[in-house]
Structures are given as C-alpha cells and as structure tokens.
C-alpha cells in the first residue's frame, strides 16, 4: 500500500518472557478506519502504544506517517491524536481549564468552545474533571485527541463505559473525522462498534492476527448456515447435498432439525440449491432459517479455535 498512513511489519513485543505481540503485520491507508479486535490480553493496547511511540519495538518495523513513532517522536507527535484507555486527567482542573492547558500544548489547536462541543460538555465547562462520569471523561479524552486536527487518530476502546446515546454520538464524531480525511486506528471490545465504523479490521488473539479484511471478507466463510425442521415423512437419506455441503441432523426440543454449513458454497447458492430441490420434490420446509455469519461468530470461533 503506497499511501499507507500506518505500516506494521513483523511487529513483536515482549514483557519479560511473555510475548504480548508475536509478529503481526498490517497497513492502514490514509483516510481509512482500521479496527483491532480481540479479547483482553490479545495485544491490542500494546500494538497501539507501540504505534503511538510509547515503546520501542522488540522486533519488526512500524511507521506512522512515514516515521518511526518512537525514535522520531517529535516529527510524529504533532500530527497524531491519542485517546488513552483510561485515566490521565488532572482531576482538580475544570473541563474548560483542561482544554485551555491542552490547547497550549497543541500546535494549531481548535478553539475552546469547539473542543468542548466535541466533548458534548458545553454545560459542564466549569465542572472539575473529577466530577465527570466515566463516559463524560471518555468524551473529553476524545475532544483532546482531536484538538490538533490530527492526521492519524488512535482510539483505545473509545466508547467503554458510555451509555448508548453517548456511544452513538461518539460514533458520529468518529465518522465525521474519517470523512474529513483522518486515518483512525481503534481498538474495541464491541463488535457492533467495529461493524459500524471499520473500513477494515483485524482480529488479534494471543499476539497474532487470526484474520483480517473488510467486515464482509472476515465474516465470509465463517459459519453461514441453513436449517429447517425435517419433514416427518422424509427419510434422512433423501436429503440433498448442497453443492458438496452435507446435512447435519440434530434433535432440538423433540423436533428433528437438518442444518447445513455452507461456508464453501455461500449462503445464496446453498439456499438456491435447497429451494430448487424442495420445489422439485414438493417438500415443505418448516422453520426454514438462513443466516450469514456475524462478526461475533468469527470472533468467538477465533478465540475458541486458537485455544484448542
């Protein structure tokens, strides 16, 4: 990728004997939103902090806007915005004071009212930070990260602790920022968040990227399923193969259920085969159910699969 704002190539990070990141590579194009998903301890935050320049790499290379973020911090920092996972506020300052001081540390900063507006805290400007709720602090954090109109924005679990309304407001801000050309790398626990926001994503598990791509690519081939109740008079042996996918028979609540996993075939083609067969054989399919894999299926399967 020639226009990559972020490049990660063979990154490894170790804490003592523990390898937190075990050789990962990905690129994020300028203006793209890339999400890192993973369970706790998967290596998301370590990866993010490496890209933010907080730690040197153990092996591999990372580049942000063409520079090594750790060794060339001074070149990179003025052009990036960082939202930490938690903490990092001076509890005794008010919201407005916090923004004012940060404006002093940020070249070409947005004005105070605009920043407080981004934080959604216009009515709390005079309130000390210690009195804000967890979600409000996250919003203030986001506003500070956006203060210098960064070219690259790092968000570490940006909506944790937010109520649904604040979460949707935050998503809107992030989408607007991306529409404005900012590159965003975010980590999240919330699969819904990645589905809403991410152009591309990677699922990390135990320091490795298990799968990556667009939401569609990642989800494709991970458990597209068709199921229906077995008609009472139909022998199991009469069930068709759907272009190679064979039926699994299970008993659920006294009913016999046939199900096909049509990963290789695809949901559409599998369904077409089944319906054509049913039409020709005049079989009635009660409880017919066709379902694409969700990111959650992939995520859970990744976590399980890798532990096996």
């Amino acid at each position, binding site marked *: 990728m020639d226009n990559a704002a972020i490049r990660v190539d063979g990154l490894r990070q170790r804490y003592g004997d523990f390898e937190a990141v075990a050789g990962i590579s990905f690129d994020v194009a300028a203006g793209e939103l890339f999400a890192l998903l993973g369970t706790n301890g998967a290596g998301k935050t370590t990866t993010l902090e490496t890209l933010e320049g907080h730690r040197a790499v153990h092996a591999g290379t990372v580049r942000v806007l063409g520079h090594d973020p750790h060794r060339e911090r001074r070149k990179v920092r003025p052009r990036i915005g*960082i939202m930490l996972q938690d903490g990092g506020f*001076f509890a005794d300052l008010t919201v407005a004071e916090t923004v004012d001081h940060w404006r002093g540390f940020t070249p070409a900063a947005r004005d105070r009212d605009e920043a407080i507006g981004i934080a959604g805290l216009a009515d709390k400007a005079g309130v000390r930070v210690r009195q804000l709720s967890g979600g409000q602090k996250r919003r203030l954090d986001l506003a*500070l990260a956006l203060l210098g109109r960064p070219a690259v924005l790092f968000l570490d679990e940006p909506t944790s602790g937010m109520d649904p309304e604040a979460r949707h407001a935050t998503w809107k801000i992030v989408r607007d920022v991306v529409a404005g050309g900012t590159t965003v790398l975010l980590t999240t626990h919330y699969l819904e968040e990645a589905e809403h926001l991410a152009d591309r994503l990677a699922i990390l598990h135990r320091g490795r990227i298990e799968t990556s791509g667009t939401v569609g690519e990642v989800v494709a081939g991970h458990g597209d399923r068709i199921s229906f109740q077995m008609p009472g008079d139909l022998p199991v042996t009469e069930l068709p193969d759907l272009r190679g996918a064979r039926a699994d028979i299970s008993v659920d609540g006294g009913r016999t259920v046939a199900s096909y996993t049509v990963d290789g075939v695809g949901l559409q083609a599998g369904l077409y085969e089944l319906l054509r067969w049913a039409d020709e054989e005049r079989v009635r399919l009660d409880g017919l159910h066709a379902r694409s894999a969700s990111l959650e299926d992939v995520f859970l399967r990744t976590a399980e699969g890798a532990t096996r």
Partner: protein
Amino acid sequence: MNLSAMSRVARLDLTLLWRNRTALFTVFGLPILFAGMLVPMKGQEIGGVDGALLQGTGHLGFFLVFAVFMNLVTVFTARREDRTLKRLRGTALSDAEITGGSVLTATAMYAVQALALLAVLGIAFGGRFPADPVLLLAGLAGGAAVFATLAFVISGITPNAEMAQLTVLPIMFACMLGAGVMFPMDGLPEWLQQVCRFTPLSPVVEIARTGYFGQDFVHRTASHPPVGIAEGWLTCVRPFLYLAFWAVIGRALASRWFRWEPRHA
C-alpha cells in the same frame, strides 16, 4: 527544548499546586515553620557568627529538600500513576519540556522561599547583604539541579504518591543530619564528618554560607576566616565538585529508573 512550551507546562503546574493543599503546605507552610525555629537561636554566637543567621543560611539550602526534591518526587510519581505523564507525552511536547516545566515551577517556588528567607534574615535577624551573591546563587542553583535530578531517581523507585512520603526520607534525613543544618557537626568523629560532607546538601550549605558571610565555611575550622571573592570561589571548588558528582550519578540513575508509566501497565 522550547522555553515557551516549557513555561506553559510550568503554568499548568502552578495551577495544580495552588489547588493541592498538601503540596502548598510543603512548599509554603514548612518554610514558615522552619523560619520560626530561628527565633530562639538569635543572639547565640556559634563559631563567630549569629546562631540564627548560621541556621538560616543552612535553611537556604535545606528548603531545596521540600520545594524541589519532595515536591518533584510527589509530582512525578502521582502523575506517572494517574497516567497524566503519559497523556502529556502524547501531545506535541517533548519529554524535556514536560519534566522541565515541573522543574521550573519547583525551582521558582524555591527561589521565592529563598528570597523571602534572605529578606527575613536581613530584617528580623540582623543579617547582611550576601558577601558574594553570585557564589551564593551558583551554590543554590547547583543544589536545585542536583535535587531535581535526585527527584527523578527517587520517583522511579516510588510505587505511588502516598509512598513518596517514605521514599524521600533516607535522602531527607541524610541531608538534615549531614549538612549540619539541624546541629553542628563538630562533636562527630572525623570519619563521620567526612561522610556527612559528602551528602548532597552539605556542599550547597557550605557554598551558601561562604557566599553569604564571606567567610570560609568549607574547611571546618573554628573561626571561619574571611575570604575575598576569588578566594571564596577557590575555597568552594571541592563542594562544587561534590555537587557535580551527585548530578552525574543522579543523571545516570534517573535515566535508568525514571518511568513515564506505571510498572503494571
């Protein structure tokens, strides 16, 4: 390093210091307490000079321990643990600007205390204008640099802000005892006096007293003979070397131990 960026950090520090009653007491309350302790010493002559002035010039150095050392250990430790250091480090500020701003505020607070103390010594205790103000200033500035450096070191081995009250104690006591601020060292065995002279505050106090009185307070003679300007500086070569030694050691340990983030993170 950009001085205007550093001064913006210093302004933040000043705002926070003003909001923090405990820190405010350490910086302003304790010096007033110590100045009060000079009153009973007034008029007692020790080694040819007034006891209150001798003690007071010791405090000139000793205030570094509160305003610069203890203050900065607490600031650096608390900010590391609540991740404000990390957040500051995520801005366009350089590392030197972030820590330099705090050092600047601490040093400015100390300068206010030192000037106030000099004024109090002059007005209330019959003190003089310093015989060699430049030597005095150089000694105190060197002391400020050493104690700021030691603050970086000690904050690195202090697990949290509460523990800072304990981890500063060894250096604080060594300084109190070693510099002869709390009691004169003449009664101690010679080898112990030599050890005491090596503690980081001793050279500051020796230089400060020599610069203030225009008498030799480096070589521990009973009479403290008068010294001229050039002679005063020559007399103070050894304490300046000790300060340089502490600065070098402190810097080496600081670069090894100082941390920007909590250990468990």
